[in-house]
């Protein structure tokens, strides 16, 4: 803001030059100056000034004074200055530059506090008030200052990594039953009192972390490992939040703890593989049971189908036997009818048919009364003869 004005006035008004030199913006102009000028100015001003400009006037406005001086001096000055003369500021520029510089300085007191912020304003280093959202004004730059603090938004302090962090980076803490748990947690907190937050404790964010670690440690020390994993976590979180709030309040940190959330809890790193094996074992166990269930179902299904086959076979056998019996009975009925009509003839016919059927397919040996074979069968030695079965009912069919 101020740089362009300084640039213009540096030639005509050395007062500003000296003054601004103190502020230290000399580094910035060179980009806009013609090449050799800016460094030559301090050194070059010296040879230029001696030509007896000194006695008369302190007041500014170089050009007007030049009119009244001898031509030789003017020529000399012109020759020395040459192209530089057009850089001489117009007379009106100086007060404008002063005014603008003052205005710019005054404007440094304007500040904007965002909707979720509070501004802690100081005047000469002393607390002057807390400003809400919107535009505000404090004393210009070094005299007044504002520090903006986010008050509406919750801050997160993450300890021991989040959900994705490995067990190695978590806090390893003792549980009530003497086990070691690895815990990762988050503290949600807000700035409740911006002035206290900035003024009472140095590095309050770090204090939140340090106190939270111990608060969680104390809280976890009161629940068992099993409860920490399932069921008892909320109580530990609640207790840790209370402890942490007490610690921060004792320090006057101006911080309100909204929640302590234990995001991950498990066994300490060295015990973790064995712990993970439990769920693998549960899977294995379930797989064993499932396989056995499948086997049982299959065995039952096999037995059922086998049983169905047995039953079907029995039914088929029954059907066959019944139909066989029926067929036989039908033939018997036919034979019986014939027998009733003519018993003798039928009996001998049946007898003959039967013997015919038997003897047609059998090897026969006819033996005489002395036991000698009349029709020797091939390879058959004479055998003991037993009488043929006699047809039932009578001695011999006639």
């Amino acid at each position, binding site marked *: 803001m101020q740089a362009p004005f300084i640039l213009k006035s540096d030639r005509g008004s050395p007062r500003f030059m000296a003054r601004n030199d103190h502020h230290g913006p000399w580094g910035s102009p060179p980009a806009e100056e013609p090449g050799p000028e800016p460094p030559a100015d301090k050194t070059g001003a010296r040879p230029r000034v001696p030509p007896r400009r000194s006695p008369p006037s302190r007041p500014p406005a170089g050009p007007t004074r030049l009119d009244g001086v001898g031509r030789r001096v003017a020529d000399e000055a012109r020759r020395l200055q040459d192209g530089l003369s057009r850089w001489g500021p117009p007379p009106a520029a100086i007060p404008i530059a002063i005014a603008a510089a003052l205005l710019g300085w005054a404007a440094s007191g304007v500040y904007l506090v965002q909707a979720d912020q509070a501004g802690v304003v100081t005047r000469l280093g002393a607390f002057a008030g807390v400003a809400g959202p919107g535009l505000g004004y404090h004393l210009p730059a070094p005299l007044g200052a504002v520090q903006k603090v986010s008050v509406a938004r919750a801050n997160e302090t993450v300890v021991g990594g989040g959900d994705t962090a490995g067990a190695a980076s978590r806090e390893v803490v003792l549980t009530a039953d003497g086990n070691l748990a690895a815990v990762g947690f988050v503290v949600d907190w807000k700035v409740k009192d911006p002035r206290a937050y900035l003024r009472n404790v140095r590095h309050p964010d770090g204090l939140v972390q340090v106190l939270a670690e111990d608060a969680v440690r104390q809280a976890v020390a009161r629940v068992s490992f099993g409860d920490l994993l399932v069921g008892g976590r909320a109580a530990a979180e609640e207790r840790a939040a209370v402890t942490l709030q007490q610690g921060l309040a004792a320090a006057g940190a101006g911080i309100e703890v909204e929640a302590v959330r234990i995001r991950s809890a498990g066994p300490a790193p060295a015990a973790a593989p064995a712990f993970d094996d439990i769920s693998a074992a549960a899977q294995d*166990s379930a797989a064993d049971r499932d396989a056995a269930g499948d086997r049982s179902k299959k*065995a039952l299904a096999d*037995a059922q189908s086998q049983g169905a086959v047995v039953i079907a076979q029995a039914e088929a056998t029954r059907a066959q036997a019944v139909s066989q019996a029926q067929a036989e009975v039908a033939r018997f009925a036919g034979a019986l009818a014939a027998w009733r009509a003519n018993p003798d003839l039928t009996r001998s016919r049946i007898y003959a048919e039967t013997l015919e059927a038997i003897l047609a397919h059998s090897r026969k040996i006819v033996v005489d009364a002395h036991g000698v074979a009349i029709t020797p069968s091939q390879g058959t030695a004479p055998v003991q003869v037993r009488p043929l079965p006699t047809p039932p009912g009578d001695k011999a069919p006639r």
Partner: protein
Amino acid sequence: MRRGALAIAAGVLVIGVLAAGSLFLAPQDQQIVVMRLGAPVRVVDGGASSFLQLKAPFVDSLIRLDRRSLWLARDGFSAVSADGRPLAAGAIVRYRIVDALGFVRSVGSERALADRLTPMLGAAAHAALASASYQQILGGDRAAIDGKALALTRDEAQAARLGVAIDAVQVADIAPTPSEGEAIQARMAQGFSGEADQMRDEGKAQARAIDAKGKAAAAEALAQATGQAAAIATDQEAQVGRIYAQSFGADPGFAAFWRSMEAYRKTLADGSAVLVLSPDSPWLRYLVRPPPGR
């Protein structure tokens, strides 16, 4: 004119340099020790004086100290509980620099202060923890322990004239010693392994039970079917018997003859029998002796 302007510039420059070297602000959260040629001469308390302050340019330098509460957290202390269990412990201390001159004279910087405070904290934590049982330390209210540690640290700091006021000491980060921690983890791992083994064994046992039950169910199903088949066979006998009885009952004499003939046909007509016939048998009667002509 140029010379005059230069003189003005030089004057302003000198005034500016002098002003910058001799004026300073003490913010409310700072206390500033003015050092003259390396020796502390006075303190400007930002909380008390909020105006531009003066110092001698060039000869006076400033050390800015915080007026706020400062804190320091240290861990890795070893301790033993009253009932003899070794522990690892830490401590958090909250303090303020209340005697800035004394602070600058005795320690000079916060880093040096931390170096001085750390062993004091370790000793205080050790002594405070030695007064409480392991259970009290771990699961109990720590207020008494913290109070003891605070008193001890306070005494030490006062004796050492550190220029600070110890506001709070909190024993923290209570943990088992590294070797005990390893032992605990090994025990836990063993427990978990046992649990896993038991789970697997249970799964196997359950699987065996399920298998046995399944086999029993299968056998029962088969037995049921066999029983049903037997019933069918019985029924078959009954039906067949009924059929024969109804039919053969009409003439038992003929039925016996007919049935025997059927049986002979079935048993003897398969070609396996060798039949020895006597020429005297009625069957060969006509073969041997034709009937007499009429």
